């Protein structure tokens, strides 16, 4: 705590900066609204709304750039609990969550709530089992911890492999999302959108490393949260006259239920095929529901880019609190998503289903013309198209089964349903982009840091001075970004949500057992851990591939819950092999004791001192 006064000064300073930033953002939105009123075209508003925040994020990256190893890897361990929480939430809320979570709830009804449970509960595991201890160790990267606890090279290598594969799958999903946003809001080709997104991500993370990424994440969290809240606030006022969507959608749910009953009575929905919105387990069996919750939670607690955030806090106690704050900030978005689903559902029940085709609201055609809404089996591009399509089916009224809508429209169409100006649509675009970039940013950084630290520095060149290590880190960052971009442009994997779920299951099975046992069970040995990590990870990967490409299915579990097989295998192998292999040394047991004691210096501190001296000399 030698630099305590330093820290509080920085804190005050940055607190003021955050205030200026937030009010500047509000002023920007208002200015754009005025410009729209006096006739600025939608295309230009879209451009300004996407490019201005990008410039701001890059600017933050340049202002907070750093050449110090400590700052580049763990932001100097000076980030307070509240800010770590906000950054972690920015990190956690991906473009897929922003766009498709409400859509999944819209389509799956009760079953969609598995995502909400799964995306939140993991934080409890992080706070209780993992983060405070990793902070005490003082790791730069997750594989670094595995190497220290499980005896070096093999554990480090396996750790890097797991980290790289689950983070990389997530990066590809993010960059794809960013490309789609740019395509939709800037009207530029998908490939160019992807490249634009990549460049802005790289500027930020390449220059400033972890410190820049932390501050950018906070900036992006504010943008995405404001963008998410405004349309639903207005919708809530329009439907219920109170601006508290998170509570008022209860009323919408009630109306939905009575309208559904009515639809069955009047024959608008076929009684046999109809699945009531709030009926549990219509899309997922209870077992699949539980499996999904389980995998998402343990995946949260095993994903390297999430755990890395808690390396940057000021103390062990702050780490525990910062996990709580993360969940508070994540919660703000997650409890709002079901409100989107409910209000949009109600709007559709009230003014689409059962309406004559000539009376359909305009937003149907906006989204029908980009093939996101179809009625009577055809894209609803115009009223004539819908009339023609439905004529062949012999109806002039839209029935329940005639109407199909893409998931991501639920959030994107909300401003139009609420008849808000285009500025709000553009704001939503900026929000999606912020959500996407924030995750892509820290994922790329976590991969690059691990490659440069764990592979290059630890295995290739132990004497590398800090300047060379930073050059390596940045080169790897750019390379990873390019490879991920290549994959997101060429390979078009079916579904972003699927990629996300795969990554969670792999992280849960590969990392979670070894982390928890390494801290909580002294007997776990290096052979056990290395074999257990490999076994858990491969079991999950095997099931994912078998399910996806060879139609294998075990116990009726879908791929979203694949970790349900891998996690127990991981635990069992670590425990079994540990009992069969030699007990960890006395030194290792003391290491674990040290890990469990919040008081005292970071375990890695001594080593770092030495490194700094070396770096100073060269």
């Amino acid at each position, binding site marked *: *705590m030698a630099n305590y006064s330093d820290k509080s000064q920085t804190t005050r300073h940055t607190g003021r900066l955050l205030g200026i930033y937030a009010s500047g953002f509000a002023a920007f939105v208002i200015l754009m609204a005025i410009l729209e009123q006096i006739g600025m075209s939608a295309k230009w508003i879209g451009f300004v709304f996407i490019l201005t925040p990008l410039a701001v994020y890059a600017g933050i990256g340049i202002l907070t750039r750093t050449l110090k190893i400590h700052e580049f890897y763990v932001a100097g361990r000076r980030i307070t609990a509240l800010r770590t929480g906000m950054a972690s939430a920015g990190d956690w809320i991906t473009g897929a969550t922003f766009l498709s979570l409400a859509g999944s709830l819209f389509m799956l009804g*009760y079953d969609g*709530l*598995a995502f*909400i*449970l799964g995306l*939140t*509960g993991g*934080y*409890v*595991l992080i*706070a*209780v*089992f993992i983060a*405070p201890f990793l902070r005490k160790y003082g790791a730069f990267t997750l594989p670094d911890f595995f190497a220290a606890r499980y005896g070096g090279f093999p554990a480090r290598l396996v750790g890097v492999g797991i980290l790289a594969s689950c983070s990389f799958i997530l990066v590809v999903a993010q960059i794809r999302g960013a490309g789609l946003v740019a395509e939709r809001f800037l009207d530029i080709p998908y490939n160019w959108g992807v490249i634009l997104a990549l460049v802005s991500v790289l500027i930020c993370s390449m220059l400033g490393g972890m410190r820049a990424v932390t501050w950018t994440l906070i900036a992006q969290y504010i943008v995405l949260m404001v963008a998410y809240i405004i349309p639903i606030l207005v919708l809530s006022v329009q439907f219920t006259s109170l601006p508290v969507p*998170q*509570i008022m*959608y*209860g*009323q*919408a*749910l*009630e109306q939905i239920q009575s309208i559904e009953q009515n639809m069955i009575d009047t024959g608008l929905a076929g009684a046999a095929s109809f699945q009531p919105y*709030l*009926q*549990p*387990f219509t899309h997922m069996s*209870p077992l699949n*529901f*539980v499996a999904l*919750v*389980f995998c998402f*939670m343990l995946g949260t607690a095993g994903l390297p880019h999430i755990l890395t955030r808690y390396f940057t806090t000021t*103390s*062990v*106690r702050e780490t*525990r*609190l910062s*996990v*709580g704050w993360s*969940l*508070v900030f994540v*919660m703000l978005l*997650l*409890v709002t998503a*079901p409100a989107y689903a409910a209000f949009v559902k109600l709007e559709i029940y009230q003014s689409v289903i059962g309406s004559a085709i000539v009376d359909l609201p305009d937003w149907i055609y906006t989204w029908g013309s980009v093939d996101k809404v179809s009625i009577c089996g055809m894209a609803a591009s115009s009223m004539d198209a819908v009339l023609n399509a439905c004529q062949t089916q012999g109806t002039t009224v839209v029935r329940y089964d005639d109407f199909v809508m893409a998931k991501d429209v639920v959030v994107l169409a909300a401003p139009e349903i609420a008849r808000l100006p285009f500025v709000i649509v553009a704001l939503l675009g900026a929000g999606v982009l912020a959500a996407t970039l924030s995750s892509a940013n820290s994922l790329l950084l976590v991969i690059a840091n691990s490659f440069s630290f764990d592979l290059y520095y630890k295995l290739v060149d132990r004497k590398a001075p800090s300047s060379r290590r930073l050059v390596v880190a940045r080169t790897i960052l750019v390379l990873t970004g390019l490879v991920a971009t290549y994959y997101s442009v060429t390979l078009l994997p079916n579904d972003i949500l699927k990629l996300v779920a795969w990554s969670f299951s792999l992280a849960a099975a590969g990392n979670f057992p070894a982390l928890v046992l390494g801290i*909580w069970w002294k007997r776990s040995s290096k052979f056990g851990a290395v074999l257990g990590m490999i076994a858990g990870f491969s079991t999950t990967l095997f099931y994912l591939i078998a399910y996806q490409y060879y139609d294998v299915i075990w116990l009726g579990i879908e791929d979203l819950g694949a970790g349900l097989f891998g996690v127990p295998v991981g635990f069992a192998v670590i425990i079994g092999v540990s009992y069969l292999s030699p007990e960890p040394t006395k030194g290792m047991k003391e290491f674990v*004791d040290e890990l*469990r*004691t*919040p*008081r005292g210096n970071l375990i890695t501190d001594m080593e770092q001192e030495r490194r700094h001296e070396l770096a100073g000399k060269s």
Partner: protein
Amino acid sequence: MAITLKGGYWARTRQLMWAALFLWFVLSFTIPLFAVPLNNLTFIGFPISYYFAAQGSVFGFIFLIFWHAARQDKIDREFGVSEDN
């Protein structure tokens, strides 16, 4: 001094961990169990089980994390292993 107290410290920490784990399990996995029977009861318009999965559990998780942090902090102080004494 810290070393002689270590056994007690870790036992208490572990106890707290099991309590937190139990509460986490209840909040995470027992709610879907009651989804079907509780679906007809409503609370400000929400079916009860829907409300708990959509909001109740999330608030529960937040409360649980801060509660755990406070209890752990108390244990840390009691055994003199907290960071500022």
